[in-house]
């Protein structure tokens, strides 16, 4: 390679390396801290890698109450996803599989989109009142309710954007042949639709799993606290246990990170309310 080409190439790789390092660095440091053994904490300056890597920080968290937080999180995510889908699949189907007025379509979607712009704290304050009134404070149902409310706009937007793209002719032909709408949905639409449906489910899962504000306000004990709250509890301790904090941080981020890799193709679409294809 000639020198004239080599230098620009080297600059490109240098910039790439910087970008990669910047993206990895916070994760790297969290993993390093989590893998260090207790005695390494007192060395200053801290070493950039664990000298005797250990899993004790993870085990300590999981064997204390860690699994309870994880189970709570999973139950709440599952419940919220189920409720969201039960409400939004019919809605999205109605918006996209019938001949409807453009105005109706636009008004409904705009209505949900405005919820996207509301800061959750403004909702959380009165929602706290509602949850107190119906006696759901410190119960997993308080979070299932609030996550359903908050995921609903995204789910309707995403599902209808996906459904709009799926062809309607086979379905319509089968309707003419006398299949009911209900059967046509399961027999004809669902087999075409399930990859997008699963990607939507994954996204709803990630958002519910990561949610912090509602969980902080509506829960108080292990009965209903989720995994971000486990991390928070460690942060607020008087003497901070850095290594447990790092281990919980990793457990918190591991699940959504893996799921996101699965939905890669749909990631951008999901994060832009289905607008960017």
């Amino acid at each position, binding site marked *: 390679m000639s020198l004239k080409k080599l230098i620009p190439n080297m600059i490109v790789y240098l910039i790439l390396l910087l970008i990669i390092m910047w*993206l990895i660095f916070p994760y790297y440091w*969290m993993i390093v*801290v989590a893998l260090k053994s207790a005695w390494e904490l007192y060395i200053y300056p801290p070493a950039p890698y664990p000298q005797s890597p250990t899993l004790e920080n993870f085990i300590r968290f999981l064997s204390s109450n860690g699994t309870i937080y994880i189970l709570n999180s999973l139950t709440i995510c599952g419940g919220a996803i189920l409720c969201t889908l039960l409400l939004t699949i019919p*809605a999205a189907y109605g918006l996209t599989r019938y001949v409807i007025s453009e105005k109706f379509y636009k008004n409904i979607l705009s209505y949900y989109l405005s919820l996207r712009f509301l800061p959750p704290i403004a*909702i959380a*304050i009165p929602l706290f009142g*509602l949850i107190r009134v119906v006696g759901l404070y410190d119960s997993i149902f308080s979070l299932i309710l609030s996550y359903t409310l908050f995921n609903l706009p995204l789910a309707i937007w995403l599902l209808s954007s996906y459904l709009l793209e799926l062809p309607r002719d086979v379905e319509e032909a089968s309707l003419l042949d006398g299949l009911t709408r209900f059967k046509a949905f399961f027999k004809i639409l669902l087999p075409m639709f399930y990859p997008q449906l699963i990607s939507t489910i994954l996204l709803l899962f990630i958002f519910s799993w990561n949610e912090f504000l509602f969980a902080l306000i509506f829960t108080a004990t292990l009965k209903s606290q989720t995994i971000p709250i486990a991390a*928070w509890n460690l942060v607020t301790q008087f003497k901070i246990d850095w290594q447990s904090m790092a281990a919980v941080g990793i457990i918190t*981020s591991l699940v959504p990170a893996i799921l996101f890799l699965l939905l890669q193709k749909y990631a951008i679409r999901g994060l832009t309310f289905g607008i*960017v294809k």
Partner: protein
Amino acid sequence: MRKLKPYYILNLPSLFFVFIIGTYLILFAIKTSIFDYKTGEFILFSNILRLAKDNYFLSSLNTTVIYVVITVLTTIVIGLSIAEFLHYFVQNSKLRSFITLLLIFPLATAPVAVGVMGRLIFTPEYGIMNVILQQLKVINEEIKWFSEPLTALTAVIFMDLWEWTPYVTLVAFAGLQSIPKEVYEAAQLDGASKIKTFQYIDLQYLKPLIFLLLIFRTADEFKIFDIIMVMTKGGPGFSTETLAVYLYRVSFKYFDLSYGALLALLIMVVMMVVSSVLNKLLWKEVIQPFR
């Protein structure tokens, strides 16, 4: 009575769900800001008087605006630059998908975990940032990041940029890749310079996306809560306290739910007006062009 159309019925459950809860929330917020949550005393006037003199509210609003402006502009500029860089200089498809993969990680990370990373990186006793900066000879003495307003804000913004810049990059990169090759070829034949190509092709194609990013990013940064709570809790003093953190402090730490409800109501009303404008703009500038 005219028969209800089926698509209308199918939309009723979700509409009702949001509508009933929404109505309850607004009524509750109104009632609670008029009558004290605990004692039931009439409190509206003292609440309004308090709002008129509330310096914490003003300072948190001020912090939020500064925070939003810095983070939104920086994430968009850096994110867009990285996308352009990948678009023009990284042709290797394996390398591209590797970078895209890495870009996804910050987005998938729970904001709480991002805060945890921030604590681990910047904490004076154990953080790596001071060590790195000392090695690079940028600083001589270690910085107590969370003890000074400016450095605390810098640390929080650093983590915010880490989390959100990839979002801009991914969206912009997707937009750049959808530009037809012929457009570039035509520009090349016409002898257009790199800067002109960027100005007249890339920016034109990305315009609706940048608009979308501006709106979504602003809305998201306006809500900022998690990272700040974990990293600084609004401190030192109240210097990194944003609107959401302040509302949380009033309502759930001092448990002054009545005043909190008044503030929440205020935000809701403002956001209703803002989002109706944003909605119109979004349909016109972004959603229609993409359909």
